[in-house]
């Protein structure tokens, strides 16, 4: 186990990581759990679960935990860097191309339709999130407040999230107190 080895495997995962989200799970299993005895499939599932309840992008966090388990802080930095590198290279190349192509009528026409596809994807994502997150009156109120804050009041999402953090900690405090009684 060395840095080069971690880098190589995570670079490969990064290159195959299309569509984001849970796609990273089978890739980590095939590239890491099946090849290194230090990490089991259960470890990976656990890291993924924790990544969902902490800040940052889920795939990045999961890779960070695996790297950390393998080689400590250096391993975490190496794994995350390797994971994002293919994405970085791809986007820089495309961004360079796109700025040159963006003035062509044919490209503009295609993108006018693609915009509709993007909108549909966003609506689909909202719908999936709604099923998982809005479960009672309490969560519906939070949903509506967050929507109003950004859409009507134009409050920065960061402040809305800070508000949510405070509310969550207060709820936790209340629950911890109620649990003791």
């Amino acid at each position: 186990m060395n840095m080069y080895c971690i880098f190589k495997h995570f670079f490969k995962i990064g290159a195959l990581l299309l569509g984001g989200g849970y796609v990273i799970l089978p890739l980590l299993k095939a590239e890491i759990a099946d090849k290194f005895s230090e990490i089991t499939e259960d470890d990976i599932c656990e890291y993924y679960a924790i990544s969902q309840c902490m800040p940052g992008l889920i795939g990045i966090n999961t890779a960070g935990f695996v790297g950390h388990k393998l080689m400590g802080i250096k391993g975490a930095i190496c794994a995350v860097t390797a994971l994002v590198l293919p994405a970085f290279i791809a986007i820089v190349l495309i961004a360079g191309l796109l700025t040159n192509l963006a003035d062509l009528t044919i490209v503009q026409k295609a993108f006018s339709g693609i915009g509709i596809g993007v909108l549909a994807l966003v609506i689909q994502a909202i719908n999936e999130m709604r099923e998982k997150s809005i479960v009672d009156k309490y969560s519906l109120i939070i949903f509506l407040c967050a929507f109003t804050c950004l859409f009507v009041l134009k409050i920065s999402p960061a402040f809305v999230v800070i508000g949510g953090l405070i509310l969550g900690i207060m709820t936790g405090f209340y629950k911890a107190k109620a649990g003791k009684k």
Partner: protein
Amino acid sequence: MIYLHLFLQFFHIGIFSFGGGYATLPFLYDISEKFGWYTLDELNNMLAVASITPGPVGINMATFAGFKTAGIFGSLLATSAIIIPSIIFVIIISKFLNKFCENIYVKSVISVLKPLGCGLLTAVGVHLFVNEFLSGNFNIIHFILFCLMIFISLKRKLPPAFYLMLGAIFGLIS
């Protein structure tokens, strides 16, 4: 100065966005409104490209936005800025691990942040919808295409590339 600004904006996305995928979108939308580094249409195009290239969408968007704003160095800076918080949090949380998700405060915070994140994304979705259909001239073909896509997405889950291809074909012939 622009570099510091760019770094701080993407660094705060790394700290405050919870959950994967489109969780970064409300932040990117906010940046476009407030700083004008890229327009809403460009954000839309970015999202399309990000859906069909490797890597998490949030990272792709950071690279793209950084590139648009300050070239290669900008994209390097924005991408690093969004992943640095992740690395720091991973190192800290590694010490607690399995106890972390069981903690009552973490659980309560997550139960608030889930619907909150959904609310933020819905605000972006509605804004995109208004921008596409209700401002300027209404395009009936685009609207029919939109309804068709929503209908398909309710029936079955297809990869993002399907919607983008369908959109591109309609865009070219309309």
